């Protein structure tokens, strides 16, 4: 025993409630994010940024290549269609409650040399989803888009 006295009765045990919250946070999307979200909101396009040197297209785009640090100026339209790189069926929510409708979460790849975008799948049953499935982004109508990742409602299978 390292202390000379310890609590003996459960009724003497105390805890103190508190938090580490503020009045919220305002996360700016940054220089690359400004391009990405403006294009998504105003033009309904998904942008990536290409590093010629490393042959990688970053989706979402960055202003630098994380592998060689080159400044990236070439923003490319990767299209709304991609393929499912991986997926999972989430059956509980953040607080551990069972979801009535499970969420299908996926990594979507827009080509051999792109990084993958994290998002949801919709209009598809869990058992129908497979790796490599072609999917397309379903955007909110123009007037509802706010320049957020949720301007894409989900991706749904093509055809």
């Amino acid at each position: 025993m390292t202390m000379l006295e310890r609590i003996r009765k459960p009724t003497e045990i105390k805890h103190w409630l508190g938090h580490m919250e503020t009045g919220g946070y305002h996360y700016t999307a940054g220089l690359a994010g400004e391009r990405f979200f403006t294009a998504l909101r105003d033009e309904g396009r998904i942008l990536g940024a290409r590093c010629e040197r490393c042959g990688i297209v970053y989706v979402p785009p960055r202003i630098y290549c994380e592998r060689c640090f080159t400044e990236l100026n070439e923003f490319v339209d990767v299209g709304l269609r991609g393929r499912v790189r991986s997926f999972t069926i989430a059956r509980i929510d953040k607080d551990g409650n069972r979801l009535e409708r499970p969420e299908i979460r996926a990594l979507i790849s827009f080509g051999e040399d792109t990084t993958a975008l994290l998002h949801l799948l919709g209009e598809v049953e869990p058992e129908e989803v497979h790796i490599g499935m072609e999917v397309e982004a379903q955007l909110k109508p123009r007037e509802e888009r706010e320049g957020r990742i949720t301007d894409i409602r989900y991706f749904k299978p093509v055809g």
Partner: protein
Amino acid sequence: MRWDREPEIEMKMRGREVAIIGVGYTNFNSVTPDLSWKELTFEAAVRAFEDAGIDPRRDVDSFITCAEDYWEGFAIFDEFTPDQLGGALRPMVTVAGDGLQGLATAYMQISSGLFDIVVVEAHSKISDLLTYEDVVLLAFDPVYEAPLGGHPYYVAGLEMREYLEWTGTTEEECAAVVAKNKGNALRNPLAPFGARVSTDEVMSSPYLFDPLKELEIAPLADGAIVFVLAEGELARRLSDKPVFLEGIGWWSESPWIGSRFPDAEYARRAAQAAYQQAGIKDPLGELDLVEVDDRFAYKELQHLEALGLARPGEAGQLLLEGALGRDGELPVNLSGGSLGMGDLVEAGGLARALEIILQLRGEAQGRQVDEPEVGLAQSWRGVPHGTGAVAIFRRC
């Protein structure tokens, strides 16, 4: 698939030798309501100093805590680190990382010649945190990833699916990890989550993030671990059972979930560096036992493959053949791993290392393997990141 251009990075020359001369730890449990994190850490620290036979106020040059603010609920947790460890009015730093990154820091402080004796502490008081899932989600990119919501562990489900697809590993093989580790934990008095469960029982536990099942997820636990490290010559003088830290590597991949592949590159590269320092050429032949991160059951298999102890897709087969059990060729997670001891957040790496130290000293009681000489401990920083570390220990 992996982008092939690898940076040419290798660990350079070795400095002074470094050894562990003392370990101290508390019990581990899902809750520890009667103690604050201060008292929990104090307990582990007192035991470590007793084990090392040193006085922290007189003998220790430097102290290191491994912690993250949001786990603790303090905007600058570093303020609250020194007293319970003996570090008041001493050099002390927080490493915002896992316990093995703390060991790496101690290693460098000693190896550089700056200090002779350094203490590393990591603890989990995760039961203090009421909104664990929210806080994990707060580690996601705030603009692209977090707004998609959900339980953050879905990322493990995504990775597991891709890992199975890439390597041909089966769900049964992953489930067998749980049966093995919870079984191992029954022989470890420090492991609160020991249980006799069969692979079939794990297979029939509900999917939470398909193909990841409920029983394949390590439960959270509280506890504290303290290591005392010393320069090699001094260690030999101070201790009759020093365990040498022969290699330590750490590595980070991109923090973007969609930029990584399911091959635990962080573990492969960290191991490469550690093997090189320790002069290990044939890990499978030279290591007597290993402890790897298994916070999700598939991670054990993925990590073993990244460590070069099995070819991609073959770790599961080795497990089913019994090669990774107590009497197998390479015992893995004899402590019970995180599935058996609990997910100790930043203390997880030290928990893995602790088992190696106890085994190399011959102090692992009912689970002791026969005269091991070299062991490896590996850590991963958890969802949603791709950072990990590897440490290699050798008995004197």
